[in-house]
Protein backbone atom coordinates (compact mmCIF):
# COMPACT_ATOMS: atom_id res chain seq x y z
CA UNK A 1 0.00 0.00 0.00
CA UNK A 2 1.81 3.02 1.19
CA UNK A 3 4.99 1.08 1.51
CA UNK A 4 7.70 1.19 -0.99
CA UNK A 5 10.34 -1.43 -0.93
CA UNK A 6 13.52 -0.29 -2.41
CA UNK A 7 16.36 -2.53 -3.33
CA UNK A 8 19.43 -0.58 -3.22
CA UNK A 9 21.35 -2.73 -5.60
CA UNK A 10 23.53 -4.32 -3.00
CA UNK A 11 27.22 -3.78 -2.71
CA UNK A 12 29.69 -6.46 -3.46
CA UNK A 13 31.50 -7.73 -0.49
CA UNK A 14 34.40 -9.86 0.04
CA UNK A 15 33.92 -13.37 -1.12
CA UNK A 16 31.49 -12.46 -3.86
CA UNK A 17 28.45 -12.60 -1.64
CA UNK A 18 25.69 -10.19 -2.51
CA UNK A 19 23.89 -8.73 0.40
CA UNK A 20 20.64 -6.99 -0.29
CA UNK A 21 19.84 -4.03 1.86
CA UNK A 22 16.14 -3.45 2.27
CA UNK A 23 14.81 -0.03 3.10
CA UNK A 24 11.14 0.32 3.87
CA UNK A 25 9.66 3.67 3.02
CA UNK A 26 6.37 3.93 4.77
CA UNK A 27 4.24 6.99 4.07
CA UNK A 28 1.95 7.81 6.93
CA UNK A 29 -1.42 8.89 5.62
CA UNK A 30 -2.98 9.75 8.97
CA UNK A 31 -2.54 13.55 8.70
CA UNK A 32 -3.89 13.41 5.18
CA UNK A 33 -7.03 11.68 6.45
CA UNK A 34 -7.31 14.23 9.23
CA UNK A 35 -7.21 17.07 6.79
CA UNK A 36 -9.74 15.45 4.46
CA UNK A 37 -12.14 14.81 7.29
CA UNK A 38 -11.86 18.43 8.28
CA UNK A 39 -12.64 19.54 4.76
CA UNK A 40 -15.60 17.18 4.51
CA UNK A 41 -17.01 18.51 7.75
CA UNK A 42 -16.61 22.02 6.46
CA UNK A 43 -18.41 21.24 3.22
CA UNK A 44 -21.19 19.41 4.96
CA UNK A 45 -21.87 22.31 7.27
CA UNK A 46 -21.53 25.18 4.86
CA UNK A 47 -23.32 23.90 1.80
CA UNK A 48 -26.75 22.66 0.96
CA UNK A 49 -27.32 19.67 -1.22
CA UNK A 50 -30.88 20.26 -2.24
CA UNK A 51 -32.06 23.21 -4.21
CA UNK A 52 -35.23 24.81 -2.92
CA UNK A 53 -38.49 24.12 -4.67
CA UNK A 54 -40.46 26.87 -6.24
CA UNK A 55 -44.01 27.47 -7.17
CA UNK A 56 -44.63 29.57 -10.21
CA UNK A 57 -47.54 31.93 -10.09
CA UNK A 58 -48.82 34.45 -12.52
CA UNK A 59 -50.78 37.29 -11.06
CA UNK A 60 -53.31 39.27 -13.05
CA UNK A 61 -52.36 42.78 -14.00
CA UNK A 62 -53.66 45.71 -12.08
CA UNK A 63 -57.39 46.09 -12.27
CA UNK A 64 -57.28 49.75 -13.26
CA UNK A 65 -55.29 48.90 -16.38
CA UNK A 66 -57.85 46.43 -17.64
CA UNK A 67 -60.95 47.79 -19.35
CA UNK A 68 -64.36 46.61 -18.32
CA UNK A 69 -65.01 44.64 -21.50
CA UNK A 70 -61.64 42.87 -21.27
CA UNK A 71 -62.35 41.48 -17.85
CA UNK A 72 -63.32 37.88 -18.08
CA UNK A 73 -66.60 36.95 -16.54
CA UNK A 74 -66.85 33.75 -14.61
CA UNK A 75 -69.88 31.58 -14.92
CA UNK A 76 -71.70 31.56 -11.63
CA UNK A 77 -72.11 27.80 -11.51
CA UNK A 78 -68.38 27.25 -12.01
CA UNK A 79 -67.03 29.75 -9.51
CA UNK A 80 -65.80 28.71 -6.09
CA UNK A 81 -64.55 31.36 -3.71
CA UNK A 82 -62.20 30.35 -0.94
CA UNK A 83 -61.81 32.71 1.98
CA UNK A 84 -58.66 32.13 4.01
CA UNK A 85 -59.08 33.43 7.52
CA UNK A 86 -56.94 33.61 10.65
CA UNK A 87 -56.15 30.52 12.76
CA UNK A 88 -56.02 28.27 9.68
CA UNK A 89 -59.72 28.63 9.00
CA UNK A 90 -61.05 28.37 5.48
CA UNK A 91 -64.51 29.09 4.21
CA UNK A 92 -65.99 28.78 0.79
CA UNK A 93 -69.08 29.71 -1.11
CA UNK A 94 -70.03 28.52 -4.55
CA UNK A 95 -71.16 31.06 -7.11
CA UNK A 96 -72.41 34.36 -5.79
CA UNK A 97 -72.25 35.21 -2.09
CA UNK A 98 -75.49 34.97 -0.16
CA UNK A 99 -75.50 37.77 2.39
CA UNK A 100 -78.78 36.81 4.01
CA UNK A 101 -78.20 33.23 5.01
CA UNK A 102 -75.05 32.82 7.07
CA UNK A 103 -75.08 29.09 6.46
CA UNK A 104 -74.27 29.65 2.79
CA UNK A 105 -70.65 30.08 3.85
CA UNK A 106 -69.26 26.62 4.48
CA UNK A 107 -66.35 25.53 6.64
CA UNK A 108 -63.36 23.81 5.12
CA UNK A 109 -60.06 22.50 6.44
CA UNK A 110 -56.56 22.28 5.05
CA UNK A 111 -56.03 18.73 6.23
CA UNK A 112 -56.62 16.48 3.19
CA UNK A 113 -57.72 13.59 5.42
CA UNK A 114 -60.73 15.47 6.71
CA UNK A 115 -64.09 14.96 5.13
CA UNK A 116 -64.66 18.63 4.44
CA UNK A 117 -61.18 19.47 3.26
CA UNK A 118 -60.40 21.77 0.37
CA UNK A 119 -59.13 18.77 -1.51
CA UNK A 120 -62.27 16.68 -1.25
CA UNK A 121 -64.38 19.65 -2.33
CA UNK A 122 -62.21 20.47 -5.30
CA UNK A 123 -61.74 16.87 -6.38
CA UNK A 124 -65.49 16.46 -6.38
CA UNK A 125 -66.14 19.66 -8.29
CA UNK A 126 -63.33 18.91 -10.72
CA UNK A 127 -64.09 15.22 -11.17
CA UNK A 128 -64.08 15.15 -14.98
CA UNK A 129 -60.74 16.86 -15.26
CA UNK A 130 -59.12 14.70 -12.59
CA UNK A 131 -60.28 11.55 -14.36
CA UNK A 132 -59.01 12.72 -17.70
CA UNK A 133 -55.68 13.78 -16.25
CA UNK A 134 -55.28 10.43 -14.54
CA UNK A 135 -55.89 8.65 -17.83
CA UNK A 136 -53.37 10.90 -19.49
CA UNK A 137 -50.84 10.20 -16.75
CA UNK A 138 -51.33 6.50 -17.32
CA UNK A 139 -50.65 6.95 -21.01
CA UNK A 140 -47.49 8.83 -20.21
CA UNK A 141 -46.44 6.16 -17.77
CA UNK A 142 -46.80 3.56 -20.53
CA UNK A 143 -44.64 5.78 -22.74
CA UNK A 144 -47.39 6.24 -25.28
CA UNK A 145 -47.06 10.01 -25.30
CA UNK A 146 -44.10 12.29 -24.76
CA UNK A 147 -43.63 14.85 -22.02
CA UNK A 148 -44.47 17.71 -24.35
CA UNK A 149 -47.74 16.26 -25.60
CA UNK A 150 -48.62 15.42 -22.02
CA UNK A 151 -48.07 19.02 -20.96
CA UNK A 152 -50.03 20.38 -23.92
CA UNK A 153 -52.93 18.00 -23.48
CA UNK A 154 -53.19 18.39 -19.73
CA UNK A 155 -53.15 22.15 -20.21
CA UNK A 156 -56.05 21.86 -22.64
CA UNK A 157 -58.02 19.63 -20.27
CA UNK A 158 -57.40 21.86 -17.27
CA UNK A 159 -58.48 24.98 -19.09
CA UNK A 160 -61.58 23.53 -20.70
CA UNK A 161 -64.85 25.46 -20.79
CA UNK A 162 -66.57 23.57 -18.01
CA UNK A 163 -63.78 23.48 -15.45
CA UNK A 164 -64.29 25.23 -12.14
CA UNK A 165 -62.72 28.59 -11.44
CA UNK A 166 -61.34 29.07 -7.95
CA UNK A 167 -60.97 32.52 -6.45
CA UNK A 168 -58.65 32.60 -3.45
CA UNK A 169 -59.21 35.51 -1.14
CA UNK A 170 -56.89 35.59 1.85
CA UNK A 171 -57.73 37.97 4.68
CA UNK A 172 -54.97 40.09 6.17
CA UNK A 173 -54.69 37.76 9.14
CA UNK A 174 -54.17 34.62 7.08
CA UNK A 175 -50.58 33.44 6.99
CA UNK A 176 -48.31 32.92 4.02
CA UNK A 177 -48.48 29.20 4.69
CA UNK A 178 -52.25 29.26 4.21
CA UNK A 179 -51.80 30.85 0.83
CA UNK A 180 -49.17 28.35 -0.26
CA UNK A 181 -51.30 25.47 1.01
CA UNK A 182 -54.28 26.73 -0.96
CA UNK A 183 -52.18 27.13 -4.10
CA UNK A 184 -50.83 23.67 -3.50
CA UNK A 185 -54.33 22.23 -3.47
CA UNK A 186 -54.95 23.85 -6.86
CA UNK A 187 -52.03 21.92 -8.24
CA UNK A 188 -53.03 18.65 -6.62
CA UNK A 189 -56.63 18.94 -7.75
CA UNK A 190 -55.67 19.95 -11.30
CA UNK A 191 -57.45 23.28 -11.16
CA UNK A 192 -56.38 25.17 -14.26
CA UNK A 193 -58.09 28.44 -13.56
CA UNK A 194 -57.49 30.09 -10.23
CA UNK A 195 -56.75 33.57 -9.11
CA UNK A 196 -55.61 35.30 -5.94
CA UNK A 197 -57.84 38.24 -5.26
CA UNK A 198 -57.99 40.76 -2.48
CA UNK A 199 -60.73 40.46 0.06
CA UNK A 200 -63.76 42.72 -0.18
CA UNK A 201 -65.78 44.20 2.69
CA UNK A 202 -68.61 41.92 1.59
CA UNK A 203 -66.48 38.84 2.21
CA UNK A 204 -65.40 40.11 5.61
CA UNK A 205 -69.03 40.60 6.45
CA UNK A 206 -69.76 37.02 5.46
CA UNK A 207 -67.03 35.67 7.73
CA UNK A 208 -68.12 37.77 10.69
CA UNK A 209 -71.70 36.77 10.14
CA UNK A 210 -70.71 33.12 10.03
CA UNK A 211 -68.65 33.38 13.21
CA UNK A 212 -71.48 34.97 15.15
CA UNK A 213 -74.15 32.79 13.54
CA UNK A 214 -76.11 35.66 12.05
CA UNK A 215 -76.00 37.95 15.09
CA UNK A 216 -73.63 40.32 13.34
CA UNK A 217 -76.03 40.88 10.46
CA UNK A 218 -78.88 41.53 12.88
CA UNK A 219 -76.77 44.11 14.69
CA UNK A 220 -76.00 45.81 11.40
CA UNK A 221 -79.64 45.86 10.38
CA UNK A 222 -80.68 47.48 13.61
Amino acid at each position, binding site marked *: *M*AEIQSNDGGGKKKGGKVKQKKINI*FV*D*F*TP*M*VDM*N*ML*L*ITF*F*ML*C*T*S*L*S*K*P*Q*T*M*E*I*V*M*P*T*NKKDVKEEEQSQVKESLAITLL*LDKDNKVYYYPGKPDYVNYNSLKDLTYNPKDENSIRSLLLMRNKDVVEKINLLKLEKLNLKISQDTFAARSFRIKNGKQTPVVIIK*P*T*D*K*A*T*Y*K*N*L*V*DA*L*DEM*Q*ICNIGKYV*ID*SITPGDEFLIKNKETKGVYALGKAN
Partner: protein
Amino acid sequence: MSKVKVPRKSTRIDMTAMSDVTVLLLTFFMLTSTFVKKEPIQVQTPASVSEIKIPDTDILQILIDPSGKVFMSLDKQKDMVDVLSAVGSEYGIAFSTKELSKFKTLPTFGTDINAMKTFLSYEPAKQDKVLKDLGIPTDSTDNQFKVWVKNARIANPKLRIAIKADSKTPYSVIKNVMNSLRDLKENRYNLITALKEDK
Protein backbone atom coordinates in the same frame (compact mmCIF):
# COMPACT_ATOMS: atom_id res chain seq x y z
CA MET B 1 13.88 -23.70 29.31
CA SER B 2 12.52 -22.19 26.27
CA LYS B 3 11.09 -18.75 26.25
CA VAL B 4 7.55 -18.27 25.01
CA LYS B 5 7.82 -16.17 21.94
CA VAL B 6 5.42 -13.32 21.78
CA PRO B 7 5.01 -12.35 18.17
CA ARG B 8 5.68 -8.67 17.75
CA LYS B 9 2.96 -6.97 15.82
CA SER B 10 3.17 -3.59 14.34
CA THR B 11 0.45 -1.23 15.59
CA ARG B 12 0.66 0.82 12.47
CA ILE B 13 -2.56 1.03 10.52
CA ASP B 14 -2.45 1.64 6.87
CA MET B 15 -4.39 4.80 6.24
CA THR B 16 -4.19 4.77 2.47
CA ALA B 17 -7.59 3.22 1.94
CA MET B 18 -9.15 5.57 4.42
CA SER B 19 -7.61 8.48 2.64
CA ASP B 20 -9.03 7.24 -0.65
CA VAL B 21 -12.50 7.16 0.80
CA THR B 22 -12.30 10.62 2.28
CA VAL B 23 -11.02 12.15 -0.92
CA LEU B 24 -13.87 10.52 -2.78
CA LEU B 25 -16.40 11.91 -0.34
CA LEU B 26 -14.81 15.30 -0.54
CA THR B 27 -15.02 15.33 -4.31
CA PHE B 28 -18.67 14.34 -4.13
CA PHE B 29 -19.54 17.15 -1.75
CA MET B 30 -17.61 19.70 -3.72
CA LEU B 31 -19.33 18.79 -6.96
CA THR B 32 -22.92 18.37 -5.84
CA SER B 33 -23.47 21.00 -3.20
CA THR B 34 -23.97 24.70 -3.40
CA PHE B 35 -22.92 27.17 -0.77
CA VAL B 36 -25.51 28.42 1.63
CA LYS B 37 -26.04 32.14 1.38
CA LYS B 38 -25.80 34.05 4.57
CA GLU B 39 -29.21 35.43 5.37
CA PRO B 40 -29.90 37.99 8.04
CA ILE B 41 -33.01 36.21 9.24
CA GLN B 42 -33.96 32.58 9.59
CA VAL B 43 -36.87 31.76 7.35
CA GLN B 44 -38.97 28.63 7.52
CA THR B 45 -40.55 28.26 4.11
CA PRO B 46 -43.89 26.50 3.79
CA ALA B 47 -43.99 23.10 2.11
CA SER B 48 -45.57 22.35 -1.24
CA VAL B 49 -45.78 19.49 -3.69
CA SER B 50 -44.34 21.61 -6.48
CA GLU B 51 -41.26 20.01 -7.95
CA ILE B 52 -39.89 22.82 -10.05
CA LYS B 53 -36.33 23.63 -9.06
CA ILE B 54 -35.17 27.17 -8.87
CA PRO B 55 -32.64 28.16 -11.55
CA ASP B 56 -29.10 28.98 -10.46
CA THR B 57 -28.57 32.34 -12.03
CA ASP B 58 -30.44 35.57 -12.63
CA ILE B 59 -32.44 35.41 -9.45
CA LEU B 60 -33.71 38.34 -7.49
CA GLN B 61 -34.60 36.91 -4.15
CA ILE B 62 -36.98 38.78 -1.92
CA LEU B 63 -36.72 37.67 1.67
CA ILE B 64 -39.63 38.45 3.94
CA ASP B 65 -39.54 37.83 7.67
CA PRO B 66 -42.65 37.31 9.87
CA SER B 67 -42.67 40.90 11.10
CA GLY B 68 -42.71 42.20 7.55
CA LYS B 69 -39.10 43.23 7.06
CA VAL B 70 -37.99 42.88 3.47
CA PHE B 71 -34.50 42.03 2.26
CA MET B 72 -33.19 41.41 -1.21
CA SER B 73 -30.33 39.55 -2.78
CA LEU B 74 -28.94 39.36 -6.27
CA ASP B 75 -26.58 36.68 -7.50
CA LYS B 76 -24.40 38.73 -9.83
CA GLN B 77 -21.99 41.30 -8.47
CA LYS B 78 -22.21 43.41 -11.60
CA ASP B 79 -25.96 43.75 -11.15
CA MET B 80 -25.46 44.72 -7.52
CA VAL B 81 -23.22 47.62 -8.50
CA ASP B 82 -25.55 48.78 -11.27
CA VAL B 83 -28.59 48.62 -9.02
CA LEU B 84 -27.03 50.52 -6.15
CA SER B 85 -25.78 53.34 -8.36
CA ALA B 86 -29.14 53.55 -10.13
CA VAL B 87 -31.12 53.62 -6.89
CA GLY B 88 -28.64 56.06 -5.38
CA SER B 89 -28.97 58.46 -8.27
CA GLU B 90 -32.75 58.28 -7.99
CA TYR B 91 -32.51 59.44 -4.39
CA GLY B 92 -29.68 61.89 -5.10
CA ILE B 93 -27.01 59.91 -3.31
CA ALA B 94 -23.69 59.27 -5.01
CA PHE B 95 -21.71 56.24 -3.90
CA SER B 96 -17.93 56.09 -4.17
CA THR B 97 -16.17 53.20 -5.88
CA LYS B 98 -15.07 51.94 -2.50
CA GLU B 99 -18.63 51.85 -1.24
CA LEU B 100 -19.78 50.15 -4.41
CA SER B 101 -17.15 47.46 -4.12
CA LYS B 102 -18.12 46.94 -0.50
CA PHE B 103 -21.76 46.67 -1.47
CA LYS B 104 -21.25 44.10 -4.20
CA THR B 105 -19.83 41.55 -1.77
CA LEU B 106 -22.87 41.70 0.50
CA PRO B 107 -24.84 38.45 0.40
CA THR B 108 -28.12 40.17 1.27
CA PHE B 109 -29.02 43.79 1.51
CA GLY B 110 -31.95 45.61 2.96
CA THR B 111 -31.54 49.07 4.37
CA ASP B 112 -33.12 52.42 3.92
CA ILE B 113 -31.23 53.98 1.03
CA ASN B 114 -30.58 57.08 3.14
CA ALA B 115 -28.85 54.92 5.75
CA MET B 116 -26.90 52.90 3.19
CA LYS B 117 -23.75 55.00 3.46
CA THR B 118 -23.51 54.52 7.22
CA PHE B 119 -24.31 50.84 6.85
CA LEU B 120 -21.53 50.34 4.31
CA SER B 121 -19.02 52.05 6.57
CA TYR B 122 -19.53 49.40 9.27
CA GLU B 123 -17.31 46.38 9.74
CA PRO B 124 -18.77 43.13 8.28
CA ALA B 125 -19.41 41.73 11.76
CA LYS B 126 -21.36 44.81 12.76
CA GLN B 127 -23.21 44.80 9.45
CA ASP B 128 -24.51 41.31 10.18
CA LYS B 129 -25.61 42.35 13.62
CA VAL B 130 -27.41 45.46 12.46
CA LEU B 131 -28.96 44.12 9.26
CA LYS B 132 -31.56 41.90 10.87
CA ASP B 133 -33.22 44.92 12.45
CA LEU B 134 -33.27 46.89 9.24
CA GLY B 135 -35.19 46.19 6.03
CA ILE B 136 -36.24 47.99 2.90
CA PRO B 137 -39.15 50.38 3.50
CA THR B 138 -42.24 49.13 1.69
CA ASP B 139 -44.93 51.49 2.94
CA SER B 140 -46.88 53.36 0.33
CA THR B 141 -45.48 56.78 1.20
CA ASP B 142 -41.87 55.79 0.64
CA ASN B 143 -41.83 52.55 -1.30
CA GLN B 144 -38.11 52.03 -1.80
CA PHE B 145 -38.71 48.36 -2.47
CA LYS B 146 -40.38 49.28 -5.74
CA VAL B 147 -37.40 51.40 -6.75
CA TRP B 148 -35.02 48.55 -6.02
CA VAL B 149 -37.01 46.05 -8.05
CA LYS B 150 -37.48 48.47 -10.93
CA ASN B 151 -33.77 49.17 -11.16
CA ALA B 152 -32.85 45.53 -10.75
CA ARG B 153 -35.04 44.76 -13.74
CA ILE B 154 -33.31 47.50 -15.76
CA ALA B 155 -29.88 46.20 -14.73
CA ASN B 156 -30.71 42.65 -15.75
CA PRO B 157 -33.80 42.08 -17.91
CA LYS B 158 -33.48 38.31 -17.59
CA LEU B 159 -34.00 38.46 -13.85
CA ARG B 160 -36.52 36.15 -12.23
CA ILE B 161 -38.18 37.21 -9.05
CA ALA B 162 -38.36 34.72 -6.22
CA ILE B 163 -40.19 35.37 -2.99
CA LYS B 164 -38.97 33.59 0.09
CA ALA B 165 -41.16 34.21 3.07
CA ASP B 166 -41.64 32.63 6.45
CA SER B 167 -44.72 30.45 6.73
CA LYS B 168 -46.00 32.51 9.65
CA THR B 169 -45.89 35.79 7.77
CA PRO B 170 -49.30 37.45 7.78
CA TYR B 171 -50.82 37.82 4.34
CA SER B 172 -51.06 41.60 4.67
CA VAL B 173 -47.26 41.77 4.37
CA ILE B 174 -47.19 39.48 1.35
CA LYS B 175 -50.03 41.43 -0.22
CA ASN B 176 -48.06 44.62 0.15
CA VAL B 177 -45.06 43.11 -1.63
CA MET B 178 -47.21 41.50 -4.31
CA ASN B 179 -49.06 44.74 -4.96
CA SER B 180 -45.77 46.59 -5.32
CA LEU B 181 -44.66 44.02 -7.86
CA ARG B 182 -48.00 44.28 -9.57
CA ASP B 183 -47.63 48.02 -9.95
CA LEU B 184 -44.34 47.38 -11.71
CA LYS B 185 -46.08 44.92 -14.04
CA GLU B 186 -44.05 42.05 -12.62
CA ASN B 187 -46.77 39.46 -12.83
CA ARG B 188 -44.70 36.35 -13.04
CA TYR B 189 -42.74 35.25 -10.04
CA ASN B 190 -41.76 32.25 -8.01
CA LEU B 191 -42.57 31.36 -4.46
CA ILE B 192 -39.81 29.42 -2.79
CA THR B 193 -41.11 26.44 -0.87
CA ALA B 194 -39.74 23.36 0.80
CA LEU B 195 -40.57 19.88 -0.35
CA LYS B 196 -43.59 18.31 1.26
CA GLU B 197 -42.98 14.81 2.52
CA ASP B 198 -46.47 13.37 2.28
CA LYS B 199 -48.63 13.76 -0.73
